[in-house]
């Protein structure tokens, strides 16, 4: 057991922090948010050049072969800097699925350009009636002569407006909530029948509604085994959950630093606000939440480095249930302690607040993960049952 970062890991974190500190101030962030694509193609290119988009991929695939720890360090720094670049959508969600399931040709066509920053891909898996249940899927994949035909609707596809292609979760068998019968398909954004409705996402980034109207695909569009997508999808979403917790944790640290700084300088009723005991204890509550969240992210990162799927599920859900709780109250507190200025667009505090609010609902909220965690306890988890049945 070893809980300290390696020298290489510390260097990586430092270099990300330094780069973002130099190139990614709050003003940059606001300008990017107001721009068309909702991210900065220039910064994205630099991310690619520094090989940050290659971090968690195997060397065979053109990656650096790093693990979950390095990915989470990158995310933590992105959270601290309020960075909106679509790492989560590309490198984690779509990228990991491609890396884990893709054939050599598929990787060549989709993954290599992603790692090199030349192309973006989004995962389209969620449908509103299913809430956060990964097995819920109604979008249909029908087998056709020489391929498939996809029809249905996906909601809130992260970074969808910038995607050159989509990894789409479709049902090729079973009922609407079955974990079996799920398949993944690679769908070019410009395929006939692909209809997008784009929007901004609360707290930064973009998303879209995606309608597939009888989209015809060749047999090579199938990613992974037909009907067997669930387990890999779940593993990738656990990873994305923990990576987004690391990002939230970075944002939490920034909020405490900024709030502390503000209360030390701001006077009211003739004294610095930071001298009031009530506010001091609130700051301490924030500090404690951060120390505990650091431990929780560390725990989940380490468990995800391992191979045990049950441990991975428990760790990811524990981490999200915890960090959703701490990040929400910390963000609320940071705004409250700033007073009026905390609720304006002109200050970064409100933007961190929005980011952390959005984080809460991504990939399942506290309620969902508490329920899942409890289910894992009681051995009632759907896929456990599934596995027993198989």
């Amino acid at each position: 057991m070893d809980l300290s970062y390696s020298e290489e890991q510390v260097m990586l974190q430092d270099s990300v922090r330094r780069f973002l500190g130099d190139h990614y101030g709050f003003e940059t962030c606001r300008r990017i948010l107001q721009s068309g694509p909702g991210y900065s193609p220039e910064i994205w290119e630099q991310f690619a050049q520094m090989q940050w988009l290659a971090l968690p991929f195997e060397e065979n695939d053109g990656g650096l072969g790093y693990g979950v720890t390095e990915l989470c360090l990158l995310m933590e720094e992105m959270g601290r800097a309020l960075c909106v670049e679509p790492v989560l959508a590309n490198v984690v969600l779509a990228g990991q699925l491609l890396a884990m399931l893709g054939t050599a040709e598929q990787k060549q066509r989709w993954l290599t350009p992603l790692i090199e920053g030349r192309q973006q891909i989004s995962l389209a898996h969620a449908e509103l009636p299913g809430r956060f249940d990964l097995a819920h899927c109604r979008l249909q994949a029908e087998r056709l002569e020489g391929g498939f035909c996809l029809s249905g609707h996906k909601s809130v596809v992260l970074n969808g407006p910038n995607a050159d292609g989509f990894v789409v979760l479709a049902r090729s068998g079973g009922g609407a909530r079955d974990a079996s019968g799920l398949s993944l398909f690679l769908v070019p954004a410009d395929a006939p029948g692909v209809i997008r409705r784009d929007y901004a996402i609360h707290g930064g980034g973009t998303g879209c509604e995606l309608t597939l109207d009888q989209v015809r695909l060749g047999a090579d569009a199938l990613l992974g085994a037909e009907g067997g997508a669930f387990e890999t999808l779940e593993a990738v979403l656990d990873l994305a959950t923990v990576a987004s917790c690391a990002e939230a944790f970075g944002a939490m640290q920034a909020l405490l630093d900024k709030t502390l700084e503000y209360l030390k300088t701001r006077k009211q009723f003739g004294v610095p606000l930071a001298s009031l005991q009530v506010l001091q204890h609130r700051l301490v509550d924030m500090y404690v939440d951060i120390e505990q969240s650091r431990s929780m992210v560390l725990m989940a990162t380490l468990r995800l480095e391992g191979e045990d799927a049950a441990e991975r599920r428990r760790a990811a859900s524990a981490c999200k249930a915890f960090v959703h709780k701490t990040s929400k109250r910390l963000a609320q507190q940071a705004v409250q302690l700033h007073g009026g200025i905390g609720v304006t667009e002109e200050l970064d505090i409100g933007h961190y607040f929005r980011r952390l609010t959005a984080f809460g609902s991504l990939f399942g909220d506290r309620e969902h993960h508490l329920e899942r965690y409890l289910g894992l306890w009681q051995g009632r988890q759907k896929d456990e049952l599934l596995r027993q049945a198989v």
Partner: protein
Amino acid sequence: MNLEFDEQDEAFRSEVRDWLATHAPRDWSDWMSASREQVMAWEQTLAQKGWLAPGWPTEYGGPGWTTTQRYIWDEECARINAPRPSIFGHVMCGPVIMAFGTDQQKAEHLPPIANGTRIWCQGYSEPGAGSDLASLKTRADRDGDDYVVNGQKIWTTWAHKADWIFCLVRTSREGRPQEGVSFLLIDLNTSGIEIRPIHTIDGEHHLNEVFFRDVRVPMANRVGEEGQGWTIAKFLLNHERSSVGGSSGSKVALAQLKGLIDSDPALRDNPAWGKRLADLEIDLLALEYTNLRALEKARSGESPGSMPSVLKLQGTEIQQALSELRVEMGGYASLPWKADPVGEPAFATATQIYNFGRAFTIYGGSSEVQKNIMAKFALGL
């Protein structure tokens, strides 16, 4: 002691219900986000019926309702989500003028408020002063029969849609800081006034900065004595708190969320959502009875004590908790930002409501200030 409504009350309820059914606007419900035209049209409709200012006595154009009638009115408005009129005129400025104003001020200002023909806003906060009203810097210096006003107000809700502003200004630098403060009524069309928007984290424009540069205000527009501003401010804050803590907005939100749980199997099948909402409904029930107790005290001429602070503190916490619950119930549907609804329309604005709701525990005397006030006045600390 009883909760019964008598026949007259029931007749009144029918009248209110029928009238609202035909007159209340359907296309908007929150004056904060409505246009000036929408709000004025509705206020004038209410005024013609004599129902614009429920708390006013008949002599000034109020309906002279009993506590029970005001309660019924609130219930009926909440039931159909009828918009409430803006509060700066009839809840805030009006009662101040009734209590402290000259006959001339009453004649000039009360009718336009009662008629719904003049929109007011409130100039209290200043940059860097937060909840510390005594430290205010906007100066009003005497010059002949006028004051010359210089300074800046901030967080001024609806200044960009209002006709007049009531302000706390400093008329003296001597004595304790509170003693040099006076209460002025200022026409926003006076030259030297500049209004700049503040955008809040819901991405909207409700608030403003108001700059005063050599603005001449007749001394006749001062309410009360010079230096009496602090007394008036405290009088008024109590009025504001009671109304800010008012539970009718939360009742509407609650009914809406209840409907969403009932209609969405994913929310209905997990009792955790229903319980969170039931818990808030129960909190709101307690608040409602605290409000009734405060109205009862007001009716019998007793001081409300610290009840306005309790109402403000708890009422805003319930509002915030409801908005937080709305965001979380929405799940993915809460994520799109200022977009056409994804799923239930009630979730499309969930994050905006939640974001702006953070201000509720900050303005009108922050929660921390309310607790300081209660520590002092309710507990003698």
